[in-house]
């Protein structure tokens, strides 16, 4: 196995050197129509890619990257195998550290979402999205705020009003820890609604079984993702107060949930998910995967997978994605500094 690997990487090295000699330094005119000239692109990728889920099996990251891997294989868009490995720990920061070790590598791709920014801002890790190579934004899902069906809160504004009167009167629950996604998404909407003392709002983190805590009446409002509670909204056990997209997403009961904007709160929250390479990923690899992903998001296989998982297509190319990341990062930074959790 290791011998095979050695031979393969040896071949790759030889072919890379070969192409560099052939093309010289004229990578700029590689696209100028001279197809006979072998560019790096023709030889890449040669060996299996390492697709990484920075969290455990069965989670959101895992689901996303496994779906990407499967679609790439089913559509034969990837010429090489794309096996998925899990590198959980530290809210994704263990894998982020691993990617630094693989600086300049052309064969690892990892999935990330909002926590990539949050873990850096709240001090979990010193590494940030700047220590990666953003490849593309793929999908988005949105937050939803739900209550028990017999709750006295009928709209998101009922909750906001109660919080304005007494910030301790409404207990907000979520699955992620304090200062992480479920907490921040609620605060962003609360801030947009004009609440100033964000720090005083009680947010309670339940690593396990947060849905039953709401159903049992132990918390008042649950801040969660749309796909997490679809079944319970359909059955009528939970009532959704608002979703955080700028337009109504989903079908059936989900499409009936009003957005925050419709209810007069000028705020949105997007939980985006995208693909990232290691820092200083070589240009030919970035180019190859950018093109491949561009093709992939247009396939019926991908569209079907998105529909099945309730994902909103939010495809963005690398440069737009990088700008987007900067903006979002700023927004999170403000919220975290207001609740005193910003580490700098």
């Amino acid at each position, binding site marked *: 196995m290791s011998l095979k690997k050695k031979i393969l990487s040896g071949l790759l090295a030889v072919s890379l050197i070969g192409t560099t000699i052939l093309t010289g330094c004229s990578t700029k005119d590689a696209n100028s129509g001279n197809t006979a000239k072998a560019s790096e692109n023709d030889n890449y990728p040669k060996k299996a890619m390492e697709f990484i889920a920075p969290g*455990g*099996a*069965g*989670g959101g990251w*895992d*689901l996303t990257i*496994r*779906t990407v891997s*499967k679609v790439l294989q089913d559509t034969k868009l990837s010429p090489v195998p794309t096996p998925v*490995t*899990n*590198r*959980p*720990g*530290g*809210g994704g*920061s*263990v894998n982020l*550290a691993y990617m630094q070790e693989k600086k300049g590598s052309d064969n690892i791709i990892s999935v990330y979402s909002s926590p990539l920014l949050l873990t850096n801002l*709240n001090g*979990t*890790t010193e590494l940030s999205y700047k220590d990666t190579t953003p490849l593309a934004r793929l999908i988005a899902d949105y937050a939803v705020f739900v209550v028990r069906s017999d709750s006295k809160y009928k709209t998101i504004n009922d909750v906001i009003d109660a919080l304005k009167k007494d910030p*301790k009167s409404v*207990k907000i629950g979520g699955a*992620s*820890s*304090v*200062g*992480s996604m479920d907490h921040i998404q609620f605060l962003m909407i609360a801030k947009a609604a004009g609440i100033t003392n964000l720090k005083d709002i*009680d947010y*309670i*983190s*339940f*690593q*396990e*079984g947060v*849905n*039953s*805590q709401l*159903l*049992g*009446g*132990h*918390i008042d409002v649950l801040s969660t993702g749309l*796909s997490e*509670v*679809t*079944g*319970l909204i*359909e*059955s009528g*056990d939970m009532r959704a107060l608002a979703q955080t997209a700028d337009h109504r997403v989903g079908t059936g009961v989900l499409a009936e949930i009003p957005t925050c904007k419709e209810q007069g709160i000028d705020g949105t929250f997007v939980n985006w998910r995208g693909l990232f390479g290691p820092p200083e990923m070589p240009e030919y690899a970035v180019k190859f995967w950018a093109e491949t992903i561009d093709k992939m998001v247009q396939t019926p296989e991908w569209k079907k997978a998105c529909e*099945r*998982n309730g994902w909103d297509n939010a495809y963005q190319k690398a440069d737009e994605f990088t700008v987007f990341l900067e903006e979002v990062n700023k927004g999170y930074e403000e919220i975290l500094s207001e609740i005193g*959790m910003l580490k700098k």
Partner: protein
Amino acid sequence: MDVLAYLLKGFSVALQPINLMWVTLGGILGTIVGMLPGLGPATGVAVLLPMTFTMGPEAALITMCGVYYGAMFGGSRSSILINTPGDGAALAATFDGYPMAQQGRAESALAMSAIASFIGGILSTIVMVFVAQPVAKFALKFGPAEYFMLMVFALSATASMTKGNLTKGFISMLIGLMISTVGIDAQSGISRFTFGILELQTGIDFLVVIIAVYALGEVFKSFKMIKEGKKKMQTKFGKIWITKEEWKRSKWPILRSAPLGFFIGALPGAGGTMASLMAYNNEKQLSKHPEEFGKGAIEGLAAPESANNAASVGALIPMLTLGVPGSGTTAVMMGALLMLGLQPGPMLFQQHPKLAWGLIASMFVGNMILAIVNIPLAGLLVRVLAIPPKILYPIVLGLAFVGTYAISNSVIDFYLLVIFGVMGYFMSKAKIPTAPLILAIIVGNSMEQSFRQAITISDGDYSIFFGSKVSIVLLILTIVSVVYPFVKERIKGKKNIVSAN
């Protein structure tokens, strides 16, 4: 009755030859995965995940359940034979299972474990058919305050079960609680005792400590004996079955532990480890000869085995009825269901009755097949004891390291493995029991979190811990569990005095 008609329909799904094949395959695979230290049911199901995309939803779910139960059956095999639990839920099987194996009664132990698991699984499936909905509703009453009281009860019961050694039991528990504080604190988002090591931010995995304390601890302990070739090995093997006497002693413990395990399993997050340890404590308290516990009492093996299988059935309840996963394994299964386009939750039974009832029917079938597969398999596995210790123990060591790496692909865990292995060795030298340590690591973090969640909800008012019937009952049970051993001793003492007079 309506339920029976549905169930019959379910059997027509579960008994289709293809599904029968899947549940058998899943069960065998699960048994193997379960035996390996570090690889539990969650890993087994996760590995299967990509495969299930191509199956139909029914076959996929049935296969995953097969793996799940298989791992529950398999987990205790290594507990009994080499004192290394495959998973937290198999921990209690080391207490009496391993002593039995050392006394040359491995055959009975393996047979009893399969029989108790089978009965526990079947009984709780029957219970589930009829009371899934009310149990799920009742479980909702468990808020943070109730969870906290439940964990206090479980811990105090486990710590005080070491008779006459209350202090040592509590020392062990406190070490466990300290270990459980490592990692990011969810209520404040602050890292505690991580020393800048990223891998420690998610905390120390209890499986690492289990493997260290039990597998490594065992190797360290018998090192001298192994080296001098004094460690016994078994060369003659009897039939894998139990005697009438053994059945008589275990009958009631098995029957009592099944509903207990079922209910604990149905509470999201509580799980098999807690269920099996509570069943063990229970039986020890009720037993007429508690002094035999820990020295190869067969009912001490039967009770937890029945409870942990019952718990694995119970854990499916919150997932199927509420769409809330009850354990790590069911969380993975729920992910798979979502990927198959199914929404677990209250509507599952109405929208996909064929699937839901097919699954329940497959629990009956699966448990039966596993019992049938496991008895002959045990005949093969028991031969492990015929391997000379000089060869067996290095293999155990190797497996311990591989299993540890499999938990989270982290090298840091190797260091932890060695550190806790040494700790386990000294604990056994000092005769400090290790079960309270493990349970404390498993529940410690959620116990602390529950406490603080409750306090935030009540705005700092401590009366929330006595605010519901459930928590008052749990409080009384806690007090009884600590005081009862003393009272029992007193009564015994008095009787002795009387009879002496």
